[in-house]
């Protein structure tokens, strides 16, 4: 029977996992500065205090600040999906009339991908208010942060879309056009639905990255989770608040990964169930 060898396989992998964890834990606990690090980074009291916050003591709740990250993430994600799609479709277009737009889209993608996010955040967060325009120069740090994230990430996501569009076989375009569908109808009903299915995993990857990068908006002074943790640590001189922020970001990103897996599985199940009877 196969049972024996597979049972041995499970036993082996369990043992090796336990041994590795034990070794890493031992190194951590036996290190000369272990007690100090545990007190500075993993102090339960500090973790709790930074999580709930205490404005009178001069620091904000990291947990509450995370709400701003979530709002910035959701707003940026929606805008990125729209802007990136427009950029990708423009870059894929063929008409000679659209050449200037195509050039603009290409330049945008090259520049936005080439400049570090932090510089884009500074440029928008400090540049736009300095212009002294109405409305445009009167926004909060969070709004400028979202604008910077959208500008930076749309370039990446546009390329993901484009790869997805190119992954749909040319014969699908021929089939759609041969039925008399216009170029835009073919794109909308035939190409994009298939393209988007193909790009869900890389898209998710970019969005996990986006969730984390909302932390950089703290540089403009917005009180998001990372900024709140920084304020706590510089007030109390304990870094446990950063660990709290890290854990909170994990709680955000892991469900997103699971959700996407679920979407992919549901899609497969539905296509199989299509066989019906």
């Amino acid at each position, binding site marked *: 029977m196969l049972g024996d060898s597979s049972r041995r396989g499970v036993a082996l992998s369990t043992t090796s996992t336990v041994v590795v964890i034990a070794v890493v834990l031992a190194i951590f606990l036996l290190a000369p500065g272990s007690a100090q690090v545990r007190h500075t980074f993993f102090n339960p009291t500090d973790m709790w205090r930074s999580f709930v916050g205490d404005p009178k003591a001069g620091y904000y709740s990291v947990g509450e600040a995370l709400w701003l990250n979530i709002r910035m993430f959701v707003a940026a994600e929606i805008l990125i999906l729209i802007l990136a799609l427009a950029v990708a479709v423009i870059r894929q277009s063929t008409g000679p009339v659209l050449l200037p737009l195509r050039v603009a889209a290409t330049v945008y993608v090259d520049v936005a991908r080439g400049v570090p996010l932090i510089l884009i955040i500074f440029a928008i967060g400090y540049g736009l208010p300095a212009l002294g325009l109405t409305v445009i120069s009167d926004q909060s740090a969070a709004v400028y942060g979202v604008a910077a994230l959208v500008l930076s990430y749309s370039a990446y996501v546009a390329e993901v879309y484009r790869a997805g569009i190119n992954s749909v076989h040319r014969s699908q375009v021929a089939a759609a056009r041969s*039925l008399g*569908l216009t170029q835009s109808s073919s794109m909308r009903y035939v190409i994009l639905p298939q393209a988007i299915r193909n790009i869900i995993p890389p898209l998710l990857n970019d969005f996990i990255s986006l969730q984390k990068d909302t932390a950089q908006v703290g540089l403009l002074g917005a009180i998001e989770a990372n900024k709140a943790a920084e304020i706590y640590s510089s007030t109390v001189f304990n870094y446990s608040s950063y660990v709290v922020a890290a854990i909170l970001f994990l709680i955000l990103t892991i469900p997103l990964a699971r959700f996407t897996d679920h979407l992919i599985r549901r899609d497969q199940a539905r296509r199989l169930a299509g066989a019906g*009877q």
Partner: protein
Amino acid sequence: MGSVTGPADAPRVADASEALRIEGLRKSFGPQEVLRGVDLAVAPHEVICLIGASGSGKSTLLRCVNLLERIDAGTIWLDGQELTRPGMDENAVRRHIGIVFQSFNLFPHMTVERNVTLAPMKVLGLSRAEAVSQAAELLDRFGLGEKRADYPDRLSGGQQQRVAIVRALAMRPRLMLLDEVTSALDPELVADVLDVIRELAEGGMTMLIATHEMGFARDIASRVCFLADGQIVEQGPPDRLFSEPTDERTRRFLRRIVDAGRL
């Protein structure tokens, strides 16, 4: 401009008694000239089989008629209307010409029903109810009624190809182009697809069929055209062309086919 039938589309050479007329059609891919002056006239309800070696230009000819390839020279008329005139709305042209490909090219993310109803709804402007009932009727007629809710990857190759034919028929075309539609099928699935085509021919559909199935061509064609070197070298009723070919190239081609046991 949009409609092929509008009075504004008056043909330069009017001969509405012809379903399709091709004159001096040339098409190159880079340095390679695939079609070197093809002339062909097709009467309504005629079934033309194009035969010839792989690479002789059969598929390219069909794709040119459907304007899927931009032609280099020549003129194509459909029902007396010039399709190759500058400014012709290619979508309007394709509305009237159905094409079925060797590799089916069904939309994999749509059910069979949606595959068949998409273009009638988006292009012809049928309501969902109209498109669905038309699809049901066509699918039933070709023995695919039970597959309506299935996705293409659950169907056999023969079933997929029949759905592809139904999808083209749902646009109520005046002309059907079939591009080696059985070449990608397992031998036992070929007959079902050929039966569908035979039924279309009996129903009076005008068709241009590129095929390697010589027996089928002999059986169904009103006329067989032999393509070689980018031209129609010889054409005629199947009985004559298969039994007394006059051109040396046709003879050589048919001899190879007979030697391979395919006729």
